[in-house]
């Protein structure tokens, strides 16, 4: 292995609309080395690799590649330098063959501009051989499994003279055997002097394959070590940081059971989920991205069907579709994606507020617009939604206010069970506090909230109980008052359940 540094990053900073995501992060990479980056959701891992792959522009700092400093890295420039990113979603052209994908844009061309197919597939075969891949270059990519497509992407990078491969959660959708396969491909790459940046929340993998590991927390680099010098406990401690003093949400003791999931499963998403929601309670679901959190809450909100198990409201079973039977009985879903799912952006604040309650504001088929105005004004006031008027289209509102309009829609309907996916994502600090206040008011009125959040602080501060999910299963249900941030995180990344 050659020890020369191929990439050096000095004091990289990045912020989005005033919120800093990365602050003065240093990072370096040697030829033939695998350098892992770990951190909680939102620690800044994705932002860092997006800067390296040219997708984002940095605010500050220096990127030195092969001893040369680069001012502006674009995706094209990064490719020219030999920096390739393998994302979680595949990046191949599905209806072309493996060979065509591998050589796309570089096909051997004859004298009059005609592609020489025989040569193309021969070259493709050669590349596949270099990685010990047993794939037919004539096979159509869409016929391949996800793991094989990933391998083709890596081979494609190799053909294009790759220097650095960046892998973002490459094992997220792979089986045990496929992971082993991937690791052997990675070892081949390293042998050829290719450097790898590897992002994963599966700590076992880090210890299996990484040479070095860097820990990010809240956009800061908090640790960098050779993997041989550390153990998992040290990693988890570094990821969590100091235990903050948590201001727990007031626990008034549990009310009666309001909504219950009994052993629900959905193929490919989650398995055997049991969850009880009491009146006056906020239950938080913690877990890494891809652990099945959103899928569970969507099913509990009646949006996706369950394959087996039961959903019980006040002890009575709810039957699948249609969706409005869930809404009629007081269960709503407040999605993470405000704009494409949560709201109708060209409709007014009033129109969005009453969207689910049109019955309430009409006599027969006719709308009572005065009553609609009155009703939506009430919600605008109680939730303190800042808009020019209730007739303003919601697309002109800030993220926090749009979030409140989504809540107003369901308050107007008289909902009991609020299922909220990332209730404060992308809103500013002030709006976040207000949304938290609204959530507390809701449960004080005897309603119940099931919340998914990637933000562990939000989970710790805002939930009475925490369900921790991992790989489609609830691995623990904890009372917030009796647990710590560190415990929740280490369960979520699988530390406590793995055998050392």
């Amino acid at each position, binding site marked *: 292995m050659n020890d020369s540094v191929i990439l050096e990053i000095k004091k990289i900073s990045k912020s989005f609309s005033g919120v800093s995501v990365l602050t003065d992060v240093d990072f370096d990479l040697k030829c033939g080395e695998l350098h892992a980056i770990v951190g909680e959701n939102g620690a800044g891992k994705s932002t860092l690799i997006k800067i390296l792959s040219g997708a984002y522009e940095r605010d500050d700092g220096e990127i030195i590649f092969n001893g040369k400093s680069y001012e502006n890295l674009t995706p094209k420039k990064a490719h020219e330098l030999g920096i390739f990113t393998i994302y979680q979603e595949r990046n191949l052209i599905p209806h072309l063959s493996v060979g065509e994908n591998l050589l796309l844009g570089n096909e051997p061309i004859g004298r009059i501009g005609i592609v020489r197919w025989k040569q193309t597939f021969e070259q493709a075969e050669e590349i596949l051989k270099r990685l010990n891949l047993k794939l037919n270059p004539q096979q159509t990519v869409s016929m391949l499994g996800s793991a094989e497509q990933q391998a083709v992407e890596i081979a494609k990078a190799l053909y294009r003279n790759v220097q650095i491969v960046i892998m973002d959660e490459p094992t997220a959708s792979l089986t045990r055997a496929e992971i082993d396969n991937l690791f052997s491909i990675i070892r081949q790459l390293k042998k050829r002097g290719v450097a790898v940046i590897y992002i994963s929340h599966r700590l076992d993998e880090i210890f299996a394959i990484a040479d070095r590991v860097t820990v990010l927390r809240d956009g800061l680099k908090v640790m960098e070590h050779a993997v041989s010098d550390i153990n998992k406990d040290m990693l988890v401690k570094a990821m969590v940081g100091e235990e903050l003093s948590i201001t727990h949400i007031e626990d008034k003791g549990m009310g009666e059971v309001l909504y219950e999931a009994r052993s629900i499963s959905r193929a490919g998403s989650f398995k055997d989920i049991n969850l009880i929601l009491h009146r006056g309670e906020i239950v938080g679901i913690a877990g890494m991205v891809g652990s099945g959190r959103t899928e569970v809450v969507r099913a509990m909100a009646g*949006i996706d069907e369950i394959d087996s198990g039961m959903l019980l409201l006040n002890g009575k079973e709810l039957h699948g579709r*249609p*969706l*409005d039977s*869930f*809404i*009629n009985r007081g269960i709503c*879903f407040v*999605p993470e994606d405000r704009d*494409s*799912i*949560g*709201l*109708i*952006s*060209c*409709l007014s604040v009033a*129109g969005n507020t009453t*969207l*689910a309650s*049109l*019955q309430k504001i*009409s006599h027969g*088929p*006719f*709308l009572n*617009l005065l009553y609609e*105005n*009155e009703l939506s*004004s009430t919600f*605008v*006031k109680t939730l*303190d*939604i*800042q*808009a*020019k*008027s*209730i*007739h303003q289209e919601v697309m002109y509102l800030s993220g926090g206010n749009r979030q409140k309009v989504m809540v107003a*829609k369901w308050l107007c309907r008289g909902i009991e069970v609020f299922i909220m996916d990332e209730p404060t994502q992308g809103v500013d600090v002030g709006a976040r506090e207000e949304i938290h206040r609204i959530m507390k008011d809701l449960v004080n009125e005897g309603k119940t909230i099931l919340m998914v959040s990637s933000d562990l602080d939000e989970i710790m501060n805002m939930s009475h109980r925490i369900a921790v999910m991992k790989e489609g299963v609830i691995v623990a249900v904890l009372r917030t008052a009796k647990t710590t941030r560190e415990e929740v995180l280490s369960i979520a990344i699988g530390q406590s359940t793995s055998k050392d």
Partner: protein
Amino acid sequence: MQSGNQRVKTDRFAGLKRIINFQQWGIIFILILLIIVLGISSPVFLSERNIRNILQQISTLGILSMGMTILMISGGIDLSVGSSISVVAVIVGKLLKAGTPVGFTIVVGLLVGSFIGLINGLLASHTRAHPFILTLGTMTLLQGVAIIITEGYPITDLGKKFEYIGGAVIWKIPFIVILFFAVMLICFFILKYTRLGRKAYAIGGNEYTTYLAGIKVKLFKIIFYVIAGFLAGFASLVLSSRISSAIPTMGAGFELQSIGAVVIGGTPLDGGRGSVWGTLTGVLLLGIIANGLNLLHVEASWQYVVTGFVIIIAVIIHEHRAR
């Protein structure tokens, strides 16, 4: 919290603002300019008779476009309305020629239009294909049906009673113009003051969000197609009674004019916005251009060129405003 009262208030003039949709000022300006220019260059243009003539000419397109407005606000589109006009007309013509009572024939005509709308609605809501292509299919199919029914020949002289609809004048206003304005007011009322209308805006604005709010999106999409089909049938009756004949290709081209009028009127192709007043300006614009060029003895071929040009300009103005 304290300032919340002042910050958010119901806008008392919101209704007025929406009636005179600000986006439409550009089109209204063009309309006024056109009227002035035509008024100067043709002495006949502003005569009572010509104004009555224009209104009579736009009534068919107007009735058709009101249905198209509701449909397009909900995010749908129907290219088959022109062929529907032809099919309904030839069926009505055949029935009248066979001596069927006028009242019964009218009901059948409206039902046929609605039924075609129902088929389009079922296709649009229960398949993944784009309604543009689906209704292109039904458009072609129905054109064929219309020709098959009459073996290609026009049916003329539909009878005094039926002609009366198209020819009657009440207080100097042609009856069909009154029908057009009645349809327009009803559509305005539906869009603004009924749950159905609100759902059109909601589905056009964001179908999935509307579904998540517990609204039966598929059902309402079908209803909007049925409304468009019903009004196509209505327009067909008006047109065939006015000219007292049923020609198997008489509706051809109406679908594009109608979509053009709706788009000039400020309803975007992907829905969520729009109003009948906007569509009225679109219909008036197309009608006045056609009439004015006629008066100025401009050839029909050039009328197409001018109309196409105006549609392009109008759409560019809207796109510009939307930014």
